[in-house]
């Protein structure tokens, strides 16, 4: 029998080890494989025709199934954004960086991405951007395949065109 502790026990240290083996699901897997080919894939609502990126089983708006895959352009518009000054776990970006919602042309909703190759203060809502991909041979079919988005220099998109795709 051990001696009882001299001080009352104040803390219990518990390190949890929980292995999880996640399934991507065929929809997400298709989306990610397409990134390797510099493509964004969306799914189209059978009722409204709206396209969701990444592909989903149904439109959350109409509740109808999405049963058609669509390839989208890799360019679109910044719908809104913020300038980040603190580092993020798992990302290697230089501070400050711009985190933006980007509505790809043809998509009904936006995706998140960083905006670089311009001064953070020059980023604005409505700015047209295009994806910058990792070089050929380095893409693996993961979200890092898109390094960031950069401005295209095209004229701004009018607000009506992106206001519902925030």
């Amino acid at each position: 029998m051990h001696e009882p502790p001299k001080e009352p026990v104040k803390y219990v240290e518990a390190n949890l080890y929980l292995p999880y083996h996640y399934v991507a699901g065929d929809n997400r897997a298709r989306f990610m494989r397409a990134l390797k080919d510099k493509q964004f894939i969306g799914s189209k609502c059978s009722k409204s025709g709206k396209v969701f990126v990444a592909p989903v089983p149904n439109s959350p708006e109409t509740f109808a199934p999405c049963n058609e895959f669509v390839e989208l352009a890799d360019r679109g518009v910044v719908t809104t954004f913020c300038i980040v000054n603190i580092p993020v776990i798992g990302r290697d970006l230089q501070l400050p960086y711009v985190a933006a919602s980007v509505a790809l042309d043809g998509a009904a909703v936006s995706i998140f991405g960083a905006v670089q190759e311009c001064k953070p203060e020059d980023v604005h809502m409505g700015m047209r951007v295009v994806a910058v991909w990792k070089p050929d041979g380095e893409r693996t079919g993961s979200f890092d395949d898109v390094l960031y988005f950069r401005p295209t220099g095209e004229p701004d998109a009018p607000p009506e065109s992106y206001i519902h795709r925030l």
Partner: protein
Amino acid sequence: MSTLRNVAVVGFAQAPIVAHDAHRVASEMLYPVVRQALAQCGVERDAIDYQTAGSADYIDGRPFGFVGALDVMGTWPPRQDSHLEMDAAFAAYYAWIRMQAGECDTALVVGYGKVSEGEPERILNLQLDPYYLAPLGLGPMTTAALQASAYMARTGTSDRDLAEIAARRRAAAVGNADAQVRTAASADELQRTPWAVEPLRQGYVPPIGESAVCLILAAEGKAETMCKQPVWIGGVDQRAELQSLGARDLTRSASTKLATEKALAMAGLASANEVDVIETLAANPVEEMIVREAMGLPARGETRPAINPSGGPLAGHPLMMTGLIRLGEAFRQLSGAADGHAVPNARRAIAHSAQGHCLQQNLVFVLGRERRWS
């Protein structure tokens, strides 16, 4: 007791329980069953005025796992909603309470979560008191074995008794198209399986599997338009007990006993013998015996009510929704939809759900083909 509102189960759909769905994430498994359940009721999503869900972040392996279900449940326009970190049967219980409060007339109840992605034995260790029990490394199998050991010592139950119950459940599951394990096995075969944790053999405990489930409830006035034979809830009650394994008699389920008494009383029934079917979330033969005793039924041998004609959890135990499946199976039996595993002339049923180690918390529904209150 004053008159309560008659509420019925009017629709139920589930994904067949499988060991591992390699092609779909939890929300993708859920979408088709929500559509199926609504189709059964012949209604669109807008006809349902409340939605609720049961799931657990740790099973999902991510915080806020339940948020992903909103997009596949038709949560647009904004809907009245809640989510319970409990077996989805408790979400059905909560929806029933809402109906009694007059806060809704119809409810969509879902259960989902991919069990195969994590390791339940490790995960469910975390349910235990983090200071005294979890550090001992107990998991649901070991705590169940402690309970089984104590029960067998008190009652003189033998390994053979367990094997016989398990064999009956396995035989029943052959007729259940949604079960994960659909092959019969004799008591001899099951007794030859190695120990999972003694005295529970691998043949007596459920496999790891996953599913997605949707059940629809409707109050009188709506229920009749949604189902030819609504299955009316005549009584319901749930009770929790202290978790600590040394603080309660593990060989008797006081909470099941109390919940059953209260639910039967509400339903105007004198005993569990008056029902024709009991679907119970007893995850091994000893739990089943404990539940049967708590319900005032013989623990061994035949009972008048058919027990787990679906095969019960032994045939498939997708964790956070196994209880809701029991309610759904009772619905199938009483509404004439239990193809392949139907109990003839079933008019009343009990659906029992449990969660926590060693039957810590128990929920009992009493159901019937007739309305309880007029």
